[in-house]
């Protein structure tokens, strides 16, 4: 999981153009409240996640609860059946 979080953090840093996020982001970081990702950045991030991890995200099922932590988002995006 640590490696996945690291890759997610790197993607967030790239999409938001805030290099510090690559090392500040943890499994518990809230994408909305801590990072403050907005709608425009969010869609770019989601598409980048699909490419990086070779997964298909179910956009219509994505809910704010999945953004409460990087860990929760990883479960939603990478392991939807395991939730």
């Amino acid at each position, binding site marked *: 999981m640590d490696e996945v979080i690291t890759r997610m953090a790197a993607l967030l840093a790239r999409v938001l153009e805030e290099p510090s996020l690559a090392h500040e982001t943890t499994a518990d970081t809230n994408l909305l409240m801590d990072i*403050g990702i907005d*709608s425009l950045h969010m869609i770019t991030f989601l598409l980048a996640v699909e490419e990086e991890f070779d997964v298909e995200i179910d956009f219509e099922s994505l809910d*704010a609860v999945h953004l409460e932590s990087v860990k929760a988002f990883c479960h939603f995006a990478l392991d939807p059946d395991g939730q």
Partner: protein
Amino acid sequence: MTATVHFGSFDAEAAWRPADLARLPASPAVGGNRGNRCLDQLLAVGCAPGDLLLTAEPMDDGLVEVLAAAGIAPRIVAVPGPEDATVEERLATLGDVGLPQVRGWAAAVYSVRPETSAAVQRLGLVATLPTAEVTARVNSKVWSNDLVRGAGLPGAAVLASTPRQVRRLVEDADGDVVLKDPYGVAGLGALRVTSPRMLDTVVRHLERQAGRGARVELLVQPLFDEALSFSTHIEVGPGAIVRWRGMRHVDNAEFAYRGSGPLSPEQHASLDTPAHREVIAQVGAALAAEGYTGPVCVDGLWLRDGTVVSVLEVNARRSMGLFNLQLDQRAGAVGLSCWLRCRTTPVVAGDALGRLLSALDEADLLFRGDRPGVLPLASGTLTPPRGRLFFAVFASPGAGRAALEAKVGDLLSATRPIRVSSPDS
């Protein structure tokens, strides 16, 4: 002279968009809707003293004082009603309960939504408004694209009405393309397709919705090699009279709005040509023929190969560029120019605007109506965790604007309490 009542929520495109249209992939609403609800406070810039501005939420008292000191001094009143209802819905339902009596006053609305006419009637205002149906039709990018195609103008897109068409048009294009929702606005509803993987995602998403009966209506447009974005502003009056209001430089980051300002003299000379004015007159005539009256912003592009795309999109409503023109009139009266800026910034809970206003005041940077300075324009858009600061920069043409804007950024950072992350974007 009759005073005017100004009002209107800024999410008009959501009201105009047919419910059965398939959507591009999007994220869930983040950060809540309060910031968007409070955009209507920007209407203050078009108000004369003695006018009434009706808003969704109260404007911060400190900002009311600061605006008044700069000569922007309407009476500002929040409309009572449910938080999730638009100002138009509240007025259409409750009328003038709890509001000043304004029967017989003129109305100036941000846009015409389905409830706008009822709101105007309930308040007893005087206005010549187009129907919401006409306004919705002419605000669709499909309408403006048909106009561009019909007139043989550069910059036309192709309409795709099935996921398969979307795939074919994107795959056949030379280079990246942009997919546009007919009612997308400010970057939401526009997607640059940069890879086959991304195209697969979009098509998969559209196919799922089409399978449930949704209509696909997307404009497929080449990603233009843009040298400069600009907007042209007109007013379509009764009797198909089209009044020219001016042109603005537009600053975008990807598709997100970042600001408007004056064109340089060289840019103005190259873009404000008889040919461009003729095209814009055609747009005005076409809008009038549809039955539209009111303000219009026509977005355009100047490409690196020299092509001028006079009509990229038509926004038949008030617009940021129009607000900038209105502010520029105030600036011009004291020999200055005005730039309208939108800055996205991390926001920590608390009185973010109050801290900023104090800091600007202490640094003697607030615009007071006579010499260079800056002026925050809305209080409710600076919402946690990530808000938007709309502000005007008043400076001498060609001097001092960048420094003033940078100082706003510095003060935003300096007045923000320490938080988990992060530097300004």
